[in-house]
């Protein structure tokens, strides 16, 4: 099978990741629960992984790296922990439901006001719109680093400048960029970045979290056992414990640690270049085929390795099913949990077929996929 659904999850992981999880499952106890050698080993594994993540993303402190299940849990924590009753939030058409649904719920239940920066027909945001939408009660700007549908990357530095100027919290969803392009939260000016471990970072599912700039206060979404201050009725105030109630997925995090080692030793620029090259070969190979409609902006200097398209008036589900059944190529049809992005592109009724590439794809994978698309479009 040719696996081209890496924007959903990377199927192929570095061998070291799998070995690290297996090893962890027979050696790690519960972090911060006692001082047995196996408990300490878990605590050390978590700490080392926090350090690696802080270095990878430019987070100023390792203890401001919070482990959660995935981007969705991180975004729910960040949003519900910083946005309160009658606040106003600015977000965009590029967002995934992991941002939209928490916001829609806050609107319904807490009278939170929402404004959306619209995307144009190529999926780009008008960066000037952010400042125009600011109101007296604006609390935060929440923005995707890259669309999971078009692959367009957003120039965050301009948005963060606006957020800083107006004292707003800037929350960035880096689900599609973490591990795929160099990313430094200081450089992009983010106060909080929310990441998942199982996509571009090539770690296990059930790993992810957030990095928090110093001075940003997030009210915990969950409270509970932490292994410290057990007689206190309140959740400990200090990060990371403040946001990490309950036993952590240390087995998965051991795998994530190995995945970051793989990325660092390979070189994130090398990974980015390869994925971009594969995407470009695919794009160039299909863009002139009659009946193909491609979404997103391929003139951007930097994108993540995603190509979304439709063929003639075929249902995207039918095209994806044909690619799977006849050609053994795995893609993703439908709405991609990005309803506003589809509405902006005019594809809300037909969806699109998304091809997303990873480090483990080959030129031969792309060549065979181009041929398959050509045959379907004939």
């Amino acid at each position, binding site marked *: 099978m040719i696996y081209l659904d890496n924007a959903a999850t990377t199927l192929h992981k570095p061998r070291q990741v799998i070995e690290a999880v297996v090893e962890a499952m027979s050696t790690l106890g519960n972090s911060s629960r006692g001082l047995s050698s196996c408990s300490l080993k878990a605590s050390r594994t978590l700490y080392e992984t926090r350090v690696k993540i802080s270095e990878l993303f430019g987070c100023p402190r390792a203890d401001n790296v919070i482990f959660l299940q995935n981007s969705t849990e991180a975004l729910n924590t960040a949003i519900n922990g910083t946005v309160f009753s009658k606040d106003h939030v600015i977000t965009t058409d590029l967002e995934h439901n992991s941002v939209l649904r928490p916001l829609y719920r806050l609107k319904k239940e807490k009278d939170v006001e929402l404004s959306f920066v619209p995307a144009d027909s190529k999926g780009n945001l008008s960066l000037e719109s952010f400042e125009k939408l600011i109101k007296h009660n604006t609390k935060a700007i929440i923005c995707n680093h890259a669309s999971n549908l078009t692959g367009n990357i957003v120039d965050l530095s301009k948005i963060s400048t606006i957020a800083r100027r107006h004292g707003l919290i800037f929350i960035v969803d880096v689900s599609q960029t973490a591990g795929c392009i160099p990313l430094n939260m200081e450089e992009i000016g983010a106060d909080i970045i929310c990441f998942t471990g199982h996509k571009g970072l090539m770690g296990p599912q059930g790993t992810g979290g957030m990095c928090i700039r110093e001075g940003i206060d997030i009210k915990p979404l969950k409270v509970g056992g932490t292994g410290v201050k057990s007689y206190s009725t309140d959740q400990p105030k200090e990060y990371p414990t403040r946001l990490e109630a309950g036993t952590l997925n240390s087995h998965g995090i051991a795998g994530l640690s190995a995945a970051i080692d793989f990325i660092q030793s390979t070189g994130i620029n090398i990974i980015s270049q390869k994925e971009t090259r594969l995407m470009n070969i695919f794009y160039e190979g299909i863009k002139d085929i009659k009946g193909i409609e491609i979404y997103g902006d391929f003139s951007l200097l930097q994108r993540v390795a995603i190509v979304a398209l439709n063929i003639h008036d*075929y*249902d995207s*589900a039918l095209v994806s*099913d*044909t690619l799977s059944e006849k050609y053994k190529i795995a893609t993703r049809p439908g709405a991609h*949990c990005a309803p506003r992005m589809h509405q902006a592109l005019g594809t809300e009724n*037909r*969806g699109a077929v998304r091809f997303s590439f990873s480090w483990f794809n080959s030129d031969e994978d792309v060549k065979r996929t181009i041929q398959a698309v050509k045959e*379907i479009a004939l």
Partner: protein
Amino acid sequence: MIEKSLKLIITFPTTTAAIAMEKICLSNKLPGRLIPLPREIDSSCGMAWCAPPENRKELEQIAKEKEIKISGVYQLYF
């Protein structure tokens, strides 16, 4: 080019129900397979059971017997 043919499409409220349907059909040697939810039925995402239209009765019967929740049953070209 993709050649379409008339299919029976059964939809479910959850992925759990769809997978349960697949398991029951496989163990009872009933025809069909899981497909992405056709947009003609619903523009949301999800999966559906796709089978020959002539098997409609027995598929509906087994879903009822095994208490698998079904959202809808359709016939369309896919």
